[in-house]
């Protein structure tokens, strides 16, 4: 990198030279070691962690170990929604911490992650819904987070294609919008963090799968991989849906179960939906990407799976709901559907903290809300891996909370992931 700084001028220079001067965005890392920190998992969170370790804590002997290609897991499969408008205060603090980072991320990384605060809108379909949205909005504003309770007319102005009939199956009574929320280009986040971390000396080692842990009594001293043993001072697991599998290699069981979540995208069309639309009554959400396709999703598949595929009925449900909100969607064509493996924690909130093994840390259990937390999660995890202490914002999300009864249950749905 270095001389390869991105800018409009550099693009112009590239144009004149047939774009031959561009170098690799990140080196093809080779396992070396010993490292101060190994991050297992080359998704957005893991790469962000490595970046912040180097950038903020000056720890550069860091390796990110990824079994496939970086960003190939949930980072490349989500529906790109970024927001912090949750209800529980601990989650509000955590996601707002992350949202603030989103707002400066492209410049920080010198990589346009295309963060677009086009608004994240929750719809209300009844007076009861509106009261709940008002409560959420009140809680957010009281915590210093932006929220706007808007009426039917304002909602209709935001998305003119909404079905605003009062006798619709789910009439739209109003909404709560977080204007600072929106979308980002998911792949760019992984690549941006990778390039920035690599530039600071982090080794990004792809196609290297962790097959075990190196132990010294109760202490984890490194990892065993398909490319050899690598020693580390501290090791951080950051593998989303594979958390159970990797933790199992250390003999650990977690309050996490891996479930499938599907999503779909339509062919690209000219702009028709300018904001992110979500409904908690309907469990569906959709937005329009910069390429023009409508990206949407809904409920997960409700049973454990690592297969990254689900049943078509889930797609049918979320699409039927999206069409009932925006009838004009009906004639658009779905071009692709896909699935990710979500790490469903047993209170619906992430786990960032120590494990029972010394030197081994965990960041996982993000359920289907991980993408929006990418920079925040990385920075908080870096803090933990660098200092051995949890940042105050991450502290409530420790692994011990389940045994102690301090769960953070946004949905109030309890431990079973399929009830979430």
């Amino acid at each position: 990198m270095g001389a390869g700084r991105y800018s409009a001028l550099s693009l112009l220079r590239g144009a004149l030279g047939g774009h031959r001067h561009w170098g690799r965005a990140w080196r093809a890392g080779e396992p070396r070691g010993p490292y101060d920190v190994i991050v297992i998992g080359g998704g957005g969170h893991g790469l962000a962690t490595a970046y912040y370790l180097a950038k903020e804590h000056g720890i550069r002997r860091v390796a990110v170990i990824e079994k496939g290609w970086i960003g190939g897991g949930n980072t490349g499969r989500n529906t790109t929604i970024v927001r912090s408008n949750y209800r529980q205060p601990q989650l509000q603090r955590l996601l707002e911490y992350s949202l603030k980072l989103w707002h400066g991320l492209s410049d920080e990384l010198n990589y346009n992650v295309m963060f677009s605060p086009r608004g994240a809108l929750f719809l209300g379909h009844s007076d009861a819904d509106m009261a709940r949205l008002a409560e959420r909005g009140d809680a957010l504003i009281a915590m210093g987070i932006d929220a706007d309770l808007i009426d039917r007319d304002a909602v209709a102005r935001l998305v003119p294609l909404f079905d605003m009939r009062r006798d619709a199956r789910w009439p739209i009574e109003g909404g709560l919008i977080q204007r600072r929320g929106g979308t980002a280009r998911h792949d760019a986040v992984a690549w941006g963090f990778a390039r920035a971390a690599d530039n600071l000396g982090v080794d990004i080692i792809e196609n290297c799968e962790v097959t075990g842990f190196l132990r010294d009594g109760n202490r984890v001293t490194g990892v065993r991989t398909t490319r050899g043993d690598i020693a580390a001072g501290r090791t951080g697991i950051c593998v989303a849906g594979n958390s159970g599998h990797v933790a199992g290699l250390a003999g650990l069981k977690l309050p996490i179960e891996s479930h499938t979540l599907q999503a779909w995208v339509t062919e690209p069309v000219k702009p028709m939906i300018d904001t992110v639309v979500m409904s908690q009554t309907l469990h569906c959400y959709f937005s329009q990407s910069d390429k023009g396709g409508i990206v949407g999703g809904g409920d997960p598949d409700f049973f454990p799976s690592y297969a990254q595929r689900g049943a078509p009925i889930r797609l049918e449900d979320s699409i039927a709901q999206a069409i009932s909100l925006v009838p004009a969607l009906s004639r658009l064509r779905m071009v692709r559907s896909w699935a990710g493996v979500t790490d469903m924690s047993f209170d619906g909130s992430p786990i960032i903290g120590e494990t029972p093994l010394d030197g081994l840390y965990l960041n996982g259990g993000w359920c289907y809300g991980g993408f929006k937390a990418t920079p925040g999660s990385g920075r908080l995890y870096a803090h933990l891996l660098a200092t051995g202490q949890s940042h105050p914002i991450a502290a409530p999300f420790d692994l011990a909370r389940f045994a102690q009864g301090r769960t953070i249950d946004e949905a109030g749905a309890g431990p079973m992931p399929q009830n979430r």
Partner: protein
Amino acid sequence: MRAGLGIDGEAMRFTFDGKAYWGVDGDTLAAALMANGVRLLARSFKYHRPRGIMAMGVEEPSALVTLGEGARAEPNVRASDVFLYPGLVAMSQNAWPSLRHDVGAVNSLVSALIPAGFYYKTFFGPPSRWMIYERFIRRAAGLGRPPQVADPDRYGHRAAFCDVLVVGAGPAGLAAALRAVEAGRRVILVEQDALPGGSLLRENVTIDGVPGAKWAARAVGRIRAAGGRVLMRTTATGHWDDNFVTAVERRVEPGQTSRGLAQVLWKLRCGDVILASGALERPLVFADNDVPGIMLAGAARALALRYGVAPGRRAVIATSHDEAYRTAFALAGLGVEIVAILDSRVDPQGPLVNAARARFPVLVDARPLRGLRRGVALAGVEAIVGTTRRRFVADCLAMSGGMSPVLHLHRQAGGALDYDAARGAFLPGAARQRQVTVGAAAGEHDLRAFLGPASIDDPLGPVVPAEPGPIWRGEARGKAFVDFQNDVTTADLALAQREGYVSVEHTKRYTTLGMGTDQGKLGAMVALAQIADERGLPLPEAGLTMFRPPYTPVTLGAFAGPARGDHAAPIRRLPLAEAHDALGALWVPAGAWMRPRVYLRPGESLGEASLREARMVRSLAGVVDVSSLAKFEIAGPDALAVVEAVCATPVARLGVGRGRYTVMLREDGMVMDDGTLWRLAEDRWLLTGSTGGAARMARHLSYVADILLARPRAAVINVSEHWAGLAFAGPRAAGLLAELTGQPVPAHMGLAQATIAGAPVRVLAASYSGERAFEVHVPAYRAAGVFAALVRAARGVGGGVYGLDAMDHLRVEKGHVVIGAEADGRAIPADLGLGGMLRTSGGFVGWQALTRPALADCAGRRQLVGVTSIDGVPIPEGAMLVVREGEEPVGHVTTSAPRVAGEGAIGLGLLVDGGARHGEALLAWSPTRKQCVPVQVGVPLFYDAEGARYRD
């Protein structure tokens, strides 16, 4: 008059960009336009380059048009995948002001500034600035204009089962389907085209003496006659677990008005699946290989033989294998001059090649370098023959870089791929499900291999396996396209490799290769070859991206099917819905249920009505419909064990004929539901619960009985819908009820059997409102008479019906919690003041979780409190409880209500350490509603603390 294997003769009129043309029944729009000499159909996505037809099927990348008008407009339709119908209206897309003169073409001039991924390298600054650039990007992106109105078409879902599903009615598929029906199997055959025949529709082959197309039509007849189901215009789009296949049937063409269903989503469960999905032709990669007039060799052949259209006057064939030679013969048959056949092989042999040599100029070691454009059409081809550069004048270039088997469904089903170097293609490997691939999809192009004893007459001889097309080495200036739809060139692929996006997944996402509506059908293998070449790897090691459903784009409406409008989700109506309507009820959703909210009188506001109703209950008598509440009967010698497991309160000492309030906990100790428990007999219990929790309670009871108690001698029956429930409450209720039943009413928390208006009822003397009250259960189908009797009785003393809002006001005064409001799934019994109610002997679901340290001691937890508005101003529901405005919340108002008994405003709330803060003054702050109401914290009970109202 045109003659072709696929056209019928009946003339059809259609328009394209406002101009009228004539086509023939059986034409695709693409063929009809070509027949009319229209060769410019579209502008490409990014560079707005002029584009014509490349392929003759679903794999067409560029010729996308908008079909239909108004509500039926459908953008991004492949011109080669829509069949003519009378009155077809088509418009070009993505060009302004016209297709011929498109200002977007300026993008081509600045293309050096906008290579793949350029947007990642610029547009920095605050997000607000990015959003300004983004507005232009979004406007430039997108191919077609989306519809603005609701979809008038209707879509159906159908399920079907078969022993054998055959995908594809080409020769291999038809042969397989015939064998299966003749063996007596239940067969379904699906074909995405409008005609059966597949490759036979673009060849001059006769089978058993008839032209291939006719043989195919007859084969379909035979399959149907034998009981097989043949679905034409039906694409198998997804192959899911256990041979579950989704297929989409088009009953009308895009933009066409349908009288019945426009499309049907078939859900097929199959014993065996035979994939005869054919193979797609690969383009050749050379500079400007996208000029209108350049098309796949198979497409040119289809134009000639199926549609009787000459794709040009002077044609060059460019190929790396034998099959494209067939195109030369087909075109020559229509009088097209074959200027040259450029074969990239050094020494091609075989009868087909030799036959061609006899008629046409065949040049070996020859391949195209550049398509030469004049205006918007092909004028010639620059080629290299050996080491000599040559130019050919031509208005058509038919190219072929080999055939790639269509293996999408095989891969979706988890099948493996085997790379065949000779063919330069992936062939189906081991299948994970009961599925087999035949025909061209398995790399077998020789008809004799699957038509068996049929006599095949192919003047050009059987087809021989293909070789991969040559790798483009940039020998001429110009853009060499790998993905035509997203305008991805070899330069973009090289850039991706250079920048380290080396894996095929990264390359794809960085360059947008294969992410268009054609899903990379043409470009996938070609791109892989280029990537492998860049990385110095054998092709199969460069990887292959995952194939995802749907195989071709599917209309969203088809997924929704019948779930539209009111049918988007079921609505549950109470047994007494009609009676409530007659009384003028205003309905409100409660989950999937619709429940009466209030019964408005003329001139009343909602608030006035609900307060009137609530006061009516406090002073006289009222009837409210509580039918939607959950109800379960548990009976048998071990019934008590079930009840004790589920209910966290003492139950064993409850006498027969008595009831009590109870709570049910989740395994994590949180309050899951609450209700009443009644002992109907020694071994027979009735448990009620909340409306919203009914399904959850049913599952929970079943789990407790069958799993935790290992099938005790007890039956657990969900009687929620057997009984309608009517709560009859108020100081006059007892007297009125005694009159109606002709017997004394049960004491408070007692029960009795009775008869009202001739219907058997059970009377449970429980109160939610705080007045002397009776919950009357009657069989749902007998409810109308009982309801009428109760309402009449209440009205007789000046009372009447009341709804959900009034019921809510009443229960707030009594401090009753509601599941979902106060009991929000995060509250343990002690939080809600119910800690003292728990059974000390334990043994109920959730007891262990309550022993956890943070729960055993309630310090710092939110607790249920009552809040009273100090100035009488209504308290906004959901407002935050704060010490000072602007501070972080210490709680929130869960429910707000007017005082029913008296004046003023009250509410219930959850407040940190609420139990120790009675008397404190706080603010109920709602910044969203711009309200800040001073409140006083107190006991969550505002009425009749002694329970005097329950005593007769």
